[in-house]
């Protein structure tokens, strides 16, 4: 059973000239209690996808396609209807916790407001008990319930934000780089909390991150995003063991970790999303690019073990014209073009 079913979602940002195709024909499913890692570099469209799912797109953005939740398509719902769903059904955790907490309100007030809005029938006592319990599970003691946001450290504020989302028992939590502004030990603490959501709260998690280490340790499945498209998706173990898309492989090789023995970087730079390259978006940087890759958009191919990939190396053969599998001739990339 999937909690959320995204089908052929597109998100465009209007610019004076042509639109930016931030999310370009993306399909994605998240199962109940599953932790799905959405990974990509800056500008890949991963944050826009997260916001698109929650209907939190900025002015001037347009979405089409389907975001199915509980049988309803969220694309096209009014802001009022979306607000009713956000919170009790779809929770959200951002990168910068301080900007999301009202500095003038006590932590207790944040919880009271949230619960009053979405579960007005709860008694005062019940509200308080639920708030304290959820905060406690996030490691925030009841003695600090009546303090203000500025009295907490960065890691504690992020714990409070997560508790504030979880107190409504959402079916899905979208966390956009929730640990990026935190130190590495605190990041580890928060990731441990998020990885245990299923056990403790029965909540599915869409974890948006640029850090493949986080995906490896905390996620069940992963989707790799490049230039607005999901180029590969599958169980974390399988993708790490044998990445199907050349971009995934390059990304894995360029990740610097304690186990890294040699430095590697991907030549070239991510494309302009106003005027992306024709064919496969990655072909100008791809070490295996074929002639077809510069001409035709790869079709999505299903692989064994519930995996899928968009890359001509995996076919289908019928889509490749005669001579299309020959190596692509191209110009060399300048030293700093990658940067």
């Amino acid at each position, binding site marked *: 059973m999937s909690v959320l079913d995204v089908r052929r979602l597109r998100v465009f940002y209007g610019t004076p000239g042509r639109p930016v195709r931030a999310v370009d024909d993306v399909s994605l499913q998240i199962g109940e209690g599953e932790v799905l890692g959405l990974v990509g*570099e*800056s500008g890949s469209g991963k944050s826009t996808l997260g916001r698109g799912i929650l209907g939190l797109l900025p002015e001037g953005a347009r979405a089409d396609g389907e975001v199915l939740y509980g049988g309803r398509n969220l694309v096209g719902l009014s802001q009022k209807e979306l607000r009713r769903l956000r919170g009790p059904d779809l929770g959200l955790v951002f990168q910068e916790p301080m900007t999301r907490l009202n500095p003038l309100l006590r932590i207790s007030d944040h919880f009271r407001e949230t619960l009053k809005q979405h579960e007005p029938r709860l008694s005062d006592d019940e509200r308080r*008990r*639920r708030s*304290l*319990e959820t*905060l*406690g*599970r996030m*490691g*925030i*003691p*009841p*003695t*600090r319930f009546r303090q203000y946001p500025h009295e907490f*450290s*960065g*890691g*504690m504020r992020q714990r409070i934000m997560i508790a504030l989302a979880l107190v409504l028992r959402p079916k899905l939590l979208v966390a956009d780089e929730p640990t990026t502004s935190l*130190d*590495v*030990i*605190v*990041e*580890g*603490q928060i*990731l*441990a909390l998020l*990885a245990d959501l299923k056990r403790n709260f029965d909540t599915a998690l869409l974890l948006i991150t*640029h*850090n*493949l*280490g986080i*995906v*490896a*340790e*905390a996620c069940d499945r992963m989707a790799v995003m490049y230039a607005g498209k999901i180029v590969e998706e599958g169980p*974390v*173990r399988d993708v*790490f*063991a044998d990445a199907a898309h050349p971009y995934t492989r*390059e*990304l*894995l090789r*360029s*990740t*610097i*970790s*304690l*186990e*890294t023995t040699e*430095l590697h*970087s*991907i030549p070239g*730079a991510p494309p302009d999303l106003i005027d992306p390259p024709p064919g496969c978006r990655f072909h100008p940087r791809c070490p295996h690019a074929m002639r077809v890759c510069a001409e035709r958009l790869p079709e999505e191919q299903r692989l064994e073990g519930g995996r899928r990939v968009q890359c001509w190396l995996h076919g289908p053969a019928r889509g490749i014209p005669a001579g299309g599998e020959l190596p692509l001739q191209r110009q060399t990339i*300048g*030293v*700093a073009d*990658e*940067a």
Partner: protein
Amino acid sequence: MRPEAIVDPPEPAAAPLVSIRDLQTHYSIRGNFAERLVGREAGVVHAVDGVTLDIRRGEVLGLVGESGSGKTTLGRTLLGLVPATGGSVRFDGQEIAGLPERRMRELRRQIQVVFQDPHASLNPAMTIGQAVGHPLQIHGIERNRARLRLRVAEVLERVGLAPAEQYLDKYPTDLSGGQKQRAVIARALILDPVLLVADEPVSMLDMSVRAKILELMLALKRDFDLTYLYITHDLATARFFCDRIAIMYLGRIVEIGPAPAIYADPKHPYTRALLRAIPEPDPERAVPRDLPRGEVPDAAQPPLGCHFHPRCPLAFEPCGWESRDLRELLEAHWARLAGEPDVEEEQALFGDLAPLGRPSTEVRLAAPRGRSAEEMLALLERIRREASDEPFWRGVRRLEAVDGHLELDFHEPQSPQLAASGGVAVECHLYGMSTASVAQPNRDSPTGEPSSGS
């Protein structure tokens, strides 16, 4: 409190480029508006609190720590951007702590800096050519515009922004993050510096770009005979980049040594935790569950004894246990039980915990009206039984109910000192406690490190 451990060593054959001795950089903080009005200080932040280390010529020294460790302040003190409040910083034999700005400016030609955020480091109204050439103008080195442009082009090509004509007249917004950081590096290089302070130079860049910038910096170091102070929170990139690593925590160097030794056999519990916390791209590894609790505490009121003791899984008697640790113990207990009915009654038993916020090794709490000190004692004993391996209890010397008061004494705190241990120097009671109650740094080496003998 800390014994003066630094003796003037005989100058070795190659004197270090930078010698930092017992450096202190403290900031005054002022409290509320009324206090600010009358100029009263609310406290002092000990951002750098007695740091001794050398930067050797031609090496890359990694200064690694979390936010709040003081690593950036140490770098800024070295650059003369914040004044040292104590100790000494010698650059090439010359004392720079307390140097007037005019003299410091001359030195800054030799000490250049690359900051974390390339977007904020470049003036959006200046072209790349203007920005990179600016230091030559400020220092009055090159006034001829044609020659200046030629020199700028040369440096741009050296950092990979080639052909330079493509970049000279562009504005920062036209460049990607990595290209901007290359321009920032070019601007630092154009003055022919001796020392480059690089404060998180790659942490805002995408993974696919980091390796390129690190490789560029290593090539530049080789070609221009540079010395680097690499300030970072990231032990993974530091492993590639650094010859030696210094781990910093709340203003102190807690471990320092050759990079291979630090990674192969980390000694300080904090170093071990930092290494364990790095997310590894290995799906067979789960998120580590045994990380130190809490966060880096406030440097205005650091924990007694070893600053790391409240988070340390191995802390024992002398590490500095105190009243605030009792508060943490109670709060963690109540967080675990949050939402259960007993908690509020337990909280009422201990009442306001604010008095425990004043650091003390002797705690005396009166039982609230209608309750007894024996009940308070019983609750603590129950917490102890639930987790008897909690390091806190090793620090407790006496715990009893006396005359309606709960009394609790901790062992006397001792501040650890940096001392040699197996090829590195470490500031931790787990090492070197056997020889003396307080370990003295190795007298042969001012940094506490065993001399390499080379």
